[in-house]
């Protein structure tokens, strides 16, 4: 098992990690010392001050208008239209002073409202996350460390070309291309509180956005020079009861899109072209917060807000329940061949691994075969002696990302908020999946002083190794290349990849059991 104490100590304050070369992380005092390579994605600085977040609260615009005397039935109809049954009941109950409604109706409305509240509070006590407002919910379940406060809210690399999309604090999305200077800005009426972005694989243009009330799919024409594509280029996919959407995952074959919402126990399987969806519902969990599709397309990880996650098998869409011990599954990532899942659990600072027999499609009706997960790394708080004094590093895991070749694993560690000297940091591991699964320390990635890492992503097809894109909390987006020669891993092909032998769980692994139940 790997732990943080094996890592080289973090850099003193003021040093910035630039790149990895010859198995060492190279750092300098500022970003400008960086020797430019022949190809570079644009490094950006998006300051929070330049963005204008709108301060509008949900449903708050109503109060800004002059009170208008409408007939009672009109208002009831409007309330029914705007806010459904509870809105109608509210309207009836609140119009008590006017005395137009029969008294029994008012009493009835009040009673039913009370019952509704009681039921929802009961439901909320089962699933505490349901009491959050939708914005807080997105902030809670987003993969970004500080979703509400930083200027960049989500980032996604295009799977085949050198462009990436960033969602900003002002609810706009920009598409940056390494080859051209035009950066189209996408804005839509329904594009609010974007929590995740996903480019459609095997397609040049489709970008899916997880918004507050819907999923938007933009079709950004790559050859167009327009900087403001019209909102006619966006498809709106919405389903009642399925908001806010916090996670999206395209199938690697590009055929279907999954969306998840923490308030909806069903995850939606969208046929984007036909704008139709099939809900996949299972009892338990109270919602779905995070989705991650294995690169070979055979399995999907679906985390829930409670101490439970599921692994779906995609040929017959059956699932396996994995109750965790302490908290909800915060994040997870798949090895390139889809045979291994690494995940972390809220409240613990360890990385768990689950392995699956890699026989996609042949194994109908069963998602996996392993009966327990193993701890592969312990990232609990460790104190390092540096030139500038003691620094403690480590804590809960916010995000896990694995590079597409399966050689580098980046872990975004949240600092301990109670300690002043602890900060959030990115720990990078070297990984090997065959012949045995290994995690070796590589080093810490640090940014400018005072800037915490906020979001991390690997470039999906960097030729010289791996390229980690980091969004820092001060609005900078930087790219840290890891130059290495791949250890002869065959090119991951879509659909099928050769089976991987089981790891010998002897030396580096201490087993800790989680429970698995085969659910239907």
């Amino acid at each position, binding site marked *: 098992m790997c732990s943080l104490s094996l890592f080289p100590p973090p850099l003193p304050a003021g040093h910035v990690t630039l790149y990895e070369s010859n198995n060492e992380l190279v750092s300098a005092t500022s970003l400008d010392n960086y020797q430019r390579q022949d190809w570079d994605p644009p490094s950006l600085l998006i300051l929070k001050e330049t963005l204008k977040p709108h301060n509008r609260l949900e449903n708050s615009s109503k109060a800004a208008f002059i009170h208008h005397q409408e007939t009672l039935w009109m208002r009831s109809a409007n309330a029914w239209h705007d806010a459904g049954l509870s809105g109608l009941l509210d309207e009836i109950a609140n119009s008590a002073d006017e005395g137009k409604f029969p008294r029994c109706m008012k009493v009835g409305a009040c009673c039913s409202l009370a019952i509704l509240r009681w039921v929802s509070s009961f439901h909320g006590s089962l699933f505490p996350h349901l009491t959050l407002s939708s914005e807080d919910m997105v902030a809670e379940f987003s993969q970004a460390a500080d979703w509400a406060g930083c200027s960049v809210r989500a980032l996604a690399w295009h799977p*085949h*070309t050198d462009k990436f999309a960033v969602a900003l604090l002002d609810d706009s999305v920009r598409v940056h291309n390494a080859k051209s200077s035009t950066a189209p800005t996408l804005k839509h009426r329904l594009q609010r509180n974007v929590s995740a972005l996903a480019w459609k694989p*095997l*397609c*040049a*243009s489709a970008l899916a956005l997880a918004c507050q009330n819907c999923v938007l799919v933009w079709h950004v024409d*790559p*050859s167009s020079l327009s900087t403001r594509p019209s909102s006619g280029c966006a498809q709106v996919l*919405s*389903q*009642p009861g399925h908001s806010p959407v916090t996670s999206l995952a395209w199938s690697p*074959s*590009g*055929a*279907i899109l999954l969306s998840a919402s923490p308030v909806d126990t069903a995850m939606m*399987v969208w*046929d*984007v*072209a*036909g*704008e*139709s*969806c*099939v*809900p*996949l*519902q299972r009892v338990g969990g109270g919602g779905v917060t995070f989705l991650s599709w294995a690169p070979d*397309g*055979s399995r999907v990880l679906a985390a829930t807000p409670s101490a439970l996650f599921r692994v779906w098998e*995609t*040929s*017959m*869409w*059956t699932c396996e329940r994995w109750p965790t011990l302490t908290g909800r599954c915060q994040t997870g990532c798949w090895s390139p061949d889809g045979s291994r899942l690494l995940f972390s659990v809220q409240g613990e600072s360890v990385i768990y691994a689950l392995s699956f027999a890699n026989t*996609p*499609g*042949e194994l109908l*009706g069963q998602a996996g075969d392993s009966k327990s997960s193993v701890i592969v790394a312990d990232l609990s708080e460790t104190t390092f002696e540096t030139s500038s004094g003691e620094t403690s590093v480590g804590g809960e895991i916010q995000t896990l990302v694995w590079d597409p070749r399966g050689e580098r694993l980046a872990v975004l560690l949240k600092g301990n908020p109670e300690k002043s000297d602890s900060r959030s940091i990115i720990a990078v591991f070297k990984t090997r999946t065959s012949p045995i699964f290994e995690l070796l320390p590589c080093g810490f990635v640090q940014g400018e002083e005072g800037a915490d890492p906020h979001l991390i992503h690997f470039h999906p097809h960097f030729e010289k190794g791996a390229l980690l894109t980091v969004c820092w909390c001060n609005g900078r987006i930087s790219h840290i290349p890891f130059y290495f020669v791949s250890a002869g891993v065959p090119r991951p*092909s*879509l*659909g*099928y990849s050769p089976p991987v032998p089981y790891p010998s769980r002897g030396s580096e692994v201490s087993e800790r059991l989680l429970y698995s139940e085969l659910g*239907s």
Partner: protein
Amino acid sequence: MLSLGHDHWFIRKVVFWRAAASIAWSVLLLPASTAIFVLLSRISVLHPIEWITGSLNFLCGSYVIFSIVLLCLVVLIIGVFILEFYTVVPSIPCTQIALIVKVLHPQQFIHSLVHSMMGMLVSWCAAVMIGGRYQFLTSPCIAEESAVASSMCLNEYHLFFLLAGAFMGYSYSLLYVVGNMNYVSFPNIQQNKYLRFKGTLPLVIKHSAVQALYSVRNYCITYFFLGYIPRAWICTTMNLQKDRTLHSLDTLTGLLDFSLLYHLWISGTFLLATWYMTWLLFRIYTTEVYCFPVQSSFSEDAHQCLPKVLSSKQPLILKYLALQDFALLSQNSPSRRQEVFSLSQPGGHPHNWSALSGECLTTLNDLTQKLIAYQEAVSSNGRTKPQSVGSDKRPSSSGSSATSLIVEPTSWQTPRVSMGPKTPGSVFLRSSVASPFTPDLGSPFGSPAMKRLTGTLDPSSPWHGSVQSPHVMRRGPKLWTSSSGAETPLNGSPQSGPAPMPSPVAGAQKPSIFSLWIQNRQEQVKNVLAKRVLIMYLFNKLPEASSQALFAESQAHIWALEGLSHLVAASYTEDRFGVVQTTLPDILGTMLTLQEAVDKHFKLPHASSKPARTSGSLVDTSYKTLRFALRASLKTAIYRITITFGEHLNAVQVSAEQRKRLQQFLEYKE
């Protein structure tokens, strides 16, 4: 009409059994739904214990048992009708009149009739199970004057229920045909049958409840106005009397009876829910994946293997299931892919691969041909329209739709228009003269003739295109891509056109005048008809519908594209003998041609407008968006091949035009 005797092995061995299983399950579900119905129909909030015990006692009674037996019969007949009427290719009426014809078709008439009768039967069962005042058709008269005769009176509530059942059965049948509910769409993800049923069941119940509500409303309105007819008829034929002490039900006071409406709605929901459940189970069972063997070691099973089955045209369900299986095997079954890539044992030919890929390519090419033909038809319509308008008012605007006419100088066209009336045979002149010249001349010559031919015809009338189509066909599609260069020499001598006219045309002159006259008459009749709003409404093409009809079979194309592209992508690592490489140029060529045709199609008006999305409705409207799905999966398929092969594709032989398109895909510009 009921052609139950399909003797195809697949229908006999698979489809029948699947239908039988689905009907059996719906019969098994009947007792449960009946129990729920009985419970709900006798609901009384004030006496809950009494209500539950009473209902449970009643459930074991003979009435309920007998009703369930009858309902089983109903479900059986409904199931047989679903089996007879199902289709995998939706029929999309392109005009209102086609829709009306579809509704009035004799087959549909029988469908409606049987469903009305079944509805009546179900509502009779419902009336008996609810009991009380609904139970019998006759009741002893209460009124004093009839008590003397001790005769029987008509129980209008019972009649009201029976007629409501017939009405709901009929409206179910009507919605079934209008909403294309006989179209069986295939799911885009595979799930177990039980889970699919469980997932859709809430939707079925919700949909039935809402539909029942609408039906009750419509039925009450109908009964309010026309209810006296069946009542009087029943009274006279059965020699019953009308009870005058009770409110008759075609009055407002009679209809505003809450418990009556509730019972009506509950039994309507029960009726629709049992039928929709049968329908749902049938769809789930028929669309289940059927695994065809890729090759068989026994020659007598060869006709059941995937290559053979894929090439069969009938029955369509077989072809669809085969294509679905083909798409799935290509995606997630390495061992079956190996069978596809394997060589035949003696001889070493890739029979499996060539049969499968050949069949898919034929399917795709058919679609390309259809699209091109449609585009030609549409573009010729679009072309002639502005011309006849333009030469009347503003000749310069005539080229708005055709590429060749944009550059035509107006000064040149005006003399032709004035010259038109001189020679009535100019239509024939054009066809005879145009051939020795370059084909480009056809279009400028044609314009005055057409203008004359159409006369005062309103250009927006639906007849417009159809009249001129013969001429368009004669000239061939090449004309429409004419270049301006060919016309410029003609500008100097506008009279050179009519000059060589005389000898060949002279003989044809007389009959041509006569036929023209006939044609003119026809035009006038049509013209007069076209001005009537109703006829316009009936015969006008529905927007989008022709586009939908064109892509009605696209589910098959989507599977063919998915299957081919996955196999080609997998061949990069798995194809040991290189069997795929031989057909790669064909596959790429076919896909790129289809891509071009689809791109062009989406530039036509109405083609890219989406129908309004109905979220969470039971009625399946996926056939309306098949063209978008096809476009998306076509792009995905081409990308899958280009991403897998990358630069190697430059070595593949394709035409220059397609090379350019392919380059776009290699650069991720599409």
